[in-house]
C-alpha cells in the first residue's frame, strides 16, 4: 500500500505538465485481419445478432382478427407490447423490469466466468464496429494497404475508396435506424409509408438520429467509445476476481522475448528463452490498439483476436499454442509457483448468480404461464361513502374495472357477496336472467359503475367486506376483487 507508483525526479521536457498538449489526437488504429477459432465465433455471433436485429420486425405471428400480426411489436398508441405468444399490458411492466434484472444477472455471470465476453462478442458497439471494419477492409484493403494509402497523397483511387467506404457505412447506418423504427409499427406498412414520405415525423427523426450515431460510433469513434464513454469497463473491474477467465499473455512462457533464432540458440545453451518472438501480431490485430503483453488493461475488450493471431504464429514457429489464452489469474500464479493448475468455474459467486438467474427466470415464466386472462379491480366511492335512499335502504357505489386479455369479446356475470339482502346494479345495463352481465371487447378493459343496495338494517358503524366476482359466461373463468360496504 505504501510504495507509490510515482517517483519524483527531474521531468524530461516532453513530460512536463506545463508543456502537455490540451488535447490528444486519436491514434489511428489499423487492425489487421486475422483467422482463427475465436474470429469465426465472432463472425457467427455477428451474423446471428444482426440478422435478428434487421429482420425480426418482418416475422409475422397470427393473433387473430383485429390484433397486430407482427411477432415483436411495441405498440405505444395501444399501450401493448407483443413478443411472439406473449402480450404485455402496461400494468404488467414488471415483466420488462424482470427482463432487465435477468439481463444484469446474466452479465454478472458472464463476467464471473469469462471476463468481458459481453464486450468482446455481444456488445452492439463491438458488433457494428466489426461490421464497419469488414467493409473498410473489403474496400481499402488490409492493415498495410490502409496505412500506406492514408499516409500517401490524395489520388483518384484513394478518393474513390473513401467515397465508397463512407457511402456503404452510411447505408448500413441508415438501415440500422430504419430497422429500429420497424419495431414500433407494422413493418411492411411502415416501410411503404417511409418510402412514400407518409410516415410520421418521429420515424424520420429516429432514423436520422440512429443513422448518425451508428455512423459516428461504429465508423469513427470505435475503441474510444469503450475506453472513454462506456461505464462498463469500470464497473466490471469491480465484479471480476482471480478465477475469472480473461484474455491473458502467459508471460511465464513468453519471456524473455526474442527472435526464433535467438531463442533456439539460447535453448541450445540451456539458457532461458521465451516463446514470444516479439512479432507484434497480437498488437496489429487488436481493434483497440492494446498490447496484451502489458497485462490486463481497461482498453482491452477481451475479443480474443490476439489469441487467434498468436496461435497462428505459434503454429508457424512450431511452439505449442496458447501463449495468449483465456486464463485466470489464479491459474497463472499457480503455474508460476509450480503448483497444480487451478480451475474453478463453480465457486460461490457463479453459484449465486446462476441460482438468481434460475430463480428470476423461473418466477417470470411461472407467473407468465399462470397469469389470468381476466381481471377485476374495484374502487369504492369516497364522497359520499354511502347514501341513504328515500325508502331507508343503504347504498354504496363502486367503480369496477373489468379486464379482458382474450382476443375475443367476452360476457362476464357480475356478482357481489358479503352484504346481507343486497342487490347489485350496473349503471347503463339491464340485468338479464343470470344477473348483471357486462361485455368487454377483445383485448380491452371496461370501467363500470356499480351500485350495491341493501334494505336490511345494518348495525351502526358497519363495514362489511364485500367480494365482487366476474365469471365468464362461456369458460367459467373467474376473477375477484375485495372491497368494503360501509354504513352509517
Amino acid at each position, binding site marked *: 500500500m505504501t510504495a507509490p507508483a510515482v517517483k519524483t525526479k527531474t521531468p524530461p521536457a516532453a513530460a512536463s505538465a506545463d508543456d502537455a498538449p490540451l*488535447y490528444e489526437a486519436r491514434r489511428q488504429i489499423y487492425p489487421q485481419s486475422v483467422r482463427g477459432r475465436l474470429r469465426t465465433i465472432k463472425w457467427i455471433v455477428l451474423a446471428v445478432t444482426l440478422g435478428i436485429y434487421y429482420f425480426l420486425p418482418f416475422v409475422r405471428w397470427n393473433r387473430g382478427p383485429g390484433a397486430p400480426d407482427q411477432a415483436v411489436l411495441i405498440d405505444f398508441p395501444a399501450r401493448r407490447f407483443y413478443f411472439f405468444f406473449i402480450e404485455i399490458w402496461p400494468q404488467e411492466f414488471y415483466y420488462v423490469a424482470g427482463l432487465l434484472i435477468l439481463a444484469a444477472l446474466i452479465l454478472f455471470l458472464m463476467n464471473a466466468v469469462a471476463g468481458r465476453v459481453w464486450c468482446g462478442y455481444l456488445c452492439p458497439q463491438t458488433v457494428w464496429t466489426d461490421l464497419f471494419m469488414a467493409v473498410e477492409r473489403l474496400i481499402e484493403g488490409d492493415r498495410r494497404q490502409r496505412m500506406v494509402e492514408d499516409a500517401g497523397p490524395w489520388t483518384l483511387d484513394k478518393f474513390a475508396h473513401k467515397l465508397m467506404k463512407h457511402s456503404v457505412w452510411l447505408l448500413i447506418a441508415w438501415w440500422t435506424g430504419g430497422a429500429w423504427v420497424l419495431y414500433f409499427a407494422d413493418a411492411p406498412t411502415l416501410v411503404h409509408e417511409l418510402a412514400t414520405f407518409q410516415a410520421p415525423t418521429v420515424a424520420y427523426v429516429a432514423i436520422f438520429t440512429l443513422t448518425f450515431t451508428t455512423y459516428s460510433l461504429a465508423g469513427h469513434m470505435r475503441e474510444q467509445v469503450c475506453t472513454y464513454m462506456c461505464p462498463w469497463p469500470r464497473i466490471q473491474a469491480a465484479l471480476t476476481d482471480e478465477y475469472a477467465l480473461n484474455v491473458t499473455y502467459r508471460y511465464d512462457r513468453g519471456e524473455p522475448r526474442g527472435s526464433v533464432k535467438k531463442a533456439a540458440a539460447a535453448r541450445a545453451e540451456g539458457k532461458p528463452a521465451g516463446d514470444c518472438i516479439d512479432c507484434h501480431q497480437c498488437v496489429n490485430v487488436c481493434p483497440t490498439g492494446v498490447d496484451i503483453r502489458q497485462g490486463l488493461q481497461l482498453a482491452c475488450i477481451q475479443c480474443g483476436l490476439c489469441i487467434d493471431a498468436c496461435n497462428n504464429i505459434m503454429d508457424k514457429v512450431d511452439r505449442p499454442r496458447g501463449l495468449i489464452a483465456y486464463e485466470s489469474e489464479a491459474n497463472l500464479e499457480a503455474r508460476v509457483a509450480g503448483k497444480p493448475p487451478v480451475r474453478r468455474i463453480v465457486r460461490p459467486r457463479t453459484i449465486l448468480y446462476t441460482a438468481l438467474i434460475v430463480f428470476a427466470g423461473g418466477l417470470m415464466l411461472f407467473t407468465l404461464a399462470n397469469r389470468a386472462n381476466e381481471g377485476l379491480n374495484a374502487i369504492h366511492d369516497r364522497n359520499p361513502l354511502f347514501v341513504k335512499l328515500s325508502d331507508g335502504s343503504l*347504498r354504496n357505489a363502486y367503480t369496477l374495472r373489468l379486464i379482458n386479455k382474450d382476443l375475443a369479446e367476452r360476457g362476464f356475470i357480475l356478482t357481489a357477496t358479503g352484504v346481507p339482502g343486497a342487490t347489485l346494479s350496473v349503471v347503463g345495463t339491464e340485468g338479464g336472467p343470470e344477473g348483471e352481465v357486462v*361485455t368487454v371487447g377483445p383485448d380491452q378493459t371496461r370501467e363500470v359503475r356499480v351500485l350495491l343496495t341493501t334494505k336490511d338494517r345494518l348495525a351502526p358503524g358497519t363495514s362489511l367486506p364485500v367480494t365482487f366476482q366476474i365469471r365468464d359466461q362461456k369458460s367459467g373463468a373467474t376473477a375477484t376483487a375485495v372491497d368494503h360496504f360501509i354504513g352509517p
Partner: protein
Amino acid sequence: MSTAHDSHDGAVDTATGVSTTGHEWDGIRELNNPLPRWWLWVFYATIVWAFGYWVLYPAWPLISSHTTGLLGWNSRSAVAMQLQDLQALRAETSMRLTNASLEEIEKTPDLLSLARAEGRVAFADNCAPCHGAGGGGAKGFPNLNDDDWLWGGTLADIQQTITHGIRSGDDEGHQGNMTPFGGVLSKADISAAADYVLSLSGAGPADTPSAKKGAAVFAANCAVCHGADGKGKQELGSKNLTDGIWLYGGDKATIMQTITNGRGGVMPAWAGRLSPTTIKALTVYVHTLGGGQ
C-alpha cells in the same frame, strides 16, 4: 490561468512517463493526460450551442423582464397552441355526444364511458366546490348520489336544472322558496309543526299533544307546498318530508330554523358558461352517480 499548474509538483509517473497533476488520493496520483480531441470538440460545441440558445430563446433576466429571443418562442404560447390542438382533437369525439340523445348515450357503452369521462372532469372543475368531489353534497347542497331529487332526477330534469339553475335569475330556471314563517306563526306553533314534521319522517313520536297540534298547523300552512301527506311536490321543488333525507339537517332546532327563516339556496345556471355538449356529459355523469328517480 497558471494556478492549475502551480500545484503541479513536477513529478513524472515512471510507468507511463506522463507527468502528474499533483492531485493525490490515498497515494494514487492523477496523471496529467490530455483529453481526447473529440471530447474537447463536443465541449466547445456545447459552448457555441449556449450562445445560439441565448440569442434565439428567452434566456437572460433583465431588471423587470427578460430577453425574449429572436424566435419569439415562449412557453405560454406553446401551451396555448397545444391546448388548441387538443381541443380540435376533442371536438371530433365530442361531436358524437352532441348528436346523440341523452338516453342513447346512456345505453351505448362507449358513448357512456365517453360522457362519464368528460362529465367527471367538468364536474370536478365546476360542481365539486358545492356538491363535493363525488357529488356527496354538504349541508344546503344536495347529495347527488341518492334518489331524492327536489326538481326531478330524470335525465331531462337534470339537464334542465344544470342548464338554467335554481333561483339563478335565469327566466327558465326553477323558482320557489321555502317561505319564512317567522312573523306569521307563533314560536309555539313553529315548535309544534317541527314536532309533526319529525314524526312524518319517523324521527319523532306522532301521538304527543305537540305533534297533534303541529298537524293542524301543517295542514293550514305547509300542505299547500309540501302536500297533505308531506311528500313534497316536484314542480315546486318542495321537499319530501317523509323520507329521512334532509338538505339542511333533520334535528328539531334546524327544522324550526328552516320554518322560521325559510330557505332558498341558489344553483347557478350553466348555459353560456358550459357548452351544450359539456352539459350533456355532465347530465349523464350526474344521472349515473345514483341513478336518479
